[in-house]
């Protein structure tokens, strides 16, 4: 539905968006994820019409939207600060956009009621924005931006101002509303957990470029670069050189005097090519004895244990000095911990547990 074609945006010398081409499909929940300053907000503001691309074109439903001013676009935005009009009540805030369309009075009433119901704000219709709590304000902002039936809804860090518990509840609410209304949502966030939870596709951005676009599970399990692997979740990165060893399999030598690691990878590597093995901590098993049938096993010393309630993370120092994180779920209550600080343990993982990435 949306097509960015070689879009570049420069502010003086600074390039915020660098020759970017992406497609966003109808009824999709699309997340733009990246550190602050990576250009994700600029991208969103270009969709809303507050910025114009320096080069390239943006198409919405086949139409070039460059000459269309923000007030004429079938795009609505939910602002990071919510931008609720402080002098208007909740009801009037939601009705604001509808009144601009010269919609008949009773249609406005119906639509606002429907929006209030959708966001469970019926009780607060007459209140002013400063008379309701942060979570309620956030819902007013959502209701207001959805009221006009936009083809596309932009959400700029919509949950940034909420505390963690409320944020999680709201994430599910957002997904629910997105499914009910069938609107295309584009969300900008720097919170990878939020992007993974709500989005159907995630675009990881850095320095004005899209690094990878994929579903949350593919982004997590099959990152296409060290940057994405490192940005999303926790990861162990082991550097080495690859040697082909059968179909899709490689022997990765990573440290002299240690047997090479066995890795399966769909990405092709040439003999002796430098590479990184990215492996998630929860895919590394920890044991006191050398596991009999593991593809890879290394010995190390426990440096640190982080107890997080549901899981524990062990920081294990290898003889090479590298530190590998291994995670185990605490499936039993008051489990006797098998390992403690300074213990010598074995870490093991299968050949398919990690991803082999180019330098």
């Amino acid at each position, binding site marked *: 539905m949306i097509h960015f074609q070689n879009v570049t945006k420069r502010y003086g010398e600074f390039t915020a968006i660098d020759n970017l081409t992406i497609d966003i499909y109808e009824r999709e929940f699309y997340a733009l994820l990246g550190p602050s300053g990576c250009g994700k907000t600029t991208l969103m503001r270009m969709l809303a019409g507050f910025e114009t691309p320096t080069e390239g074109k943006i198409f919405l439903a086949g139409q070039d939207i460059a000459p269309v001013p923000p007030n004429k676009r079938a795009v609505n935005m939910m602002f990071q600060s919510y931008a609720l009009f402080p002098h208007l009540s909740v009801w009037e805030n939601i009705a*604001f956009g509808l009144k601009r369309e010269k919609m008949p009075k009773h249609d406005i009433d119906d639509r606002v009621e429907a929006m209030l119901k959708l966001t469970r704000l019926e009780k607060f219709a007459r209140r002013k924005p400063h*008379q309701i709590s942060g979570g309620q304000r956030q819902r007013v902002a959502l209701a207001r931006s959805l009221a006009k039936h936009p083809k596309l809804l932009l959400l700029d860090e919509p949950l940034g101002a909420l505390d963690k518990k409320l944020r999680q509840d709201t994430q599910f609410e957002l997904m629910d509303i997105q499914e009910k209304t069938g609107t295309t949502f584009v969300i900008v966030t720097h919170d990878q957990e939020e992007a993974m939870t709500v989005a159907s596709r995630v675009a990881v951005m850095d320095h004005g470029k899209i690094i990878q676009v994929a579903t949350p599970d593919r982004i997590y399990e099959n990152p296409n670069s060290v940057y994405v692997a490192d940005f999303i979740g926790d990861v162990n990165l082991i550097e080495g050189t690859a040697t082909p060893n059968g179909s899709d399999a490689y022997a990765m030598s990573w440290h002299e005097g240690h047997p090479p690691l066995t890795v399966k990878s769909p990405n092709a590597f040439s003999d002796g090519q430098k590479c990184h093995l990215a492996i998630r901590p929860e895919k590394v098993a920890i044991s006191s004895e050398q596991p009999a049938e593991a593809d890879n096993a290394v010995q190390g010393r426990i440096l640190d244990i982080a107890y997080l309630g549901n899981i524990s993370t062990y920081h294990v120092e290898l003889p090479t000095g590298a530190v590998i994180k291994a995670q185990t779920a605490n499936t039993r209550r008051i489990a006797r911990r098998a390992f403690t600080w300074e213990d010598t343990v074995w870490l093991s993982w299968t050949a398919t547990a990690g991803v082999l990435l180019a330098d």
Partner: protein
Amino acid sequence: MNRMSWFNAVSLTLGFAFLYIPMVILVIFSFNESKLVTVWAGFSTKWYVELLQNEAFLNAAWVTIKVAVFSSTMATVLGTIAAYVLVRGGRFMGRTLFSGMIYAPLVMPEVITGLSLLLLFIGIGLDRGVFTIVLAHTTFAMCYVSVVVSSRLVTFDRSLEEAALDLGCSPAEAFRLVTLPIIAPAVISGWLLAFTLSLDDLVIASFTSGPSATTLPIKIFSAVRLGVSPEINALSTIMISIVTVGVITASLVTKHQVARQKREEQAAERA
């Protein structure tokens, strides 16, 4: 509460005495029976009665109010637009120069402003009267309005305007429906400031007024040169009380609003 140290108490008393004794004396003597300003001869309100029968003073008061209302309204419109453009206009050519020029009249000696306006009016052959005073007052009050309004606009959340555009407003509608209602308190206080500036201006008014139009400050000033009469005291007392009531009302209203907003916000967070 801690008791004040003697030093603080003395400084406070001296300070307030310095500020208010002249006015208190003026108010007391406005109720003096005697025609002699400096001799107390018993309580009377006769000077107020006489004042209300003095055509010249009443005319001057009427001119003053007309001038103040018109000039402060024009100054508010122009000053608000200037402030909006300077804060929101982005980096257009000569922006720094313009903002400097907006503030320059604030520090310009009134005599010079008055004189230059006088020369201008003579130069373009404009007859001096109420209209020229209104123009002159608009000129200098506009700067004050734009200072007050731009200080509010600087802290104004830009995304509110963007939200209005996003919801289908044209830029003009966004200004009328969102920006203006929100900055209204600053615009109103700008208007009040312009109004009071115009009310008590003597220097610029005397340069730009003609024989047909005399404002109250000019009238008082010329009357006092012939000797202070108790009528002037009475007039001044009325002006003082109007200003006092206005200031107290305004501050009470603001205080009440702030307190209410705080209460409601706390209630909302608890809910």
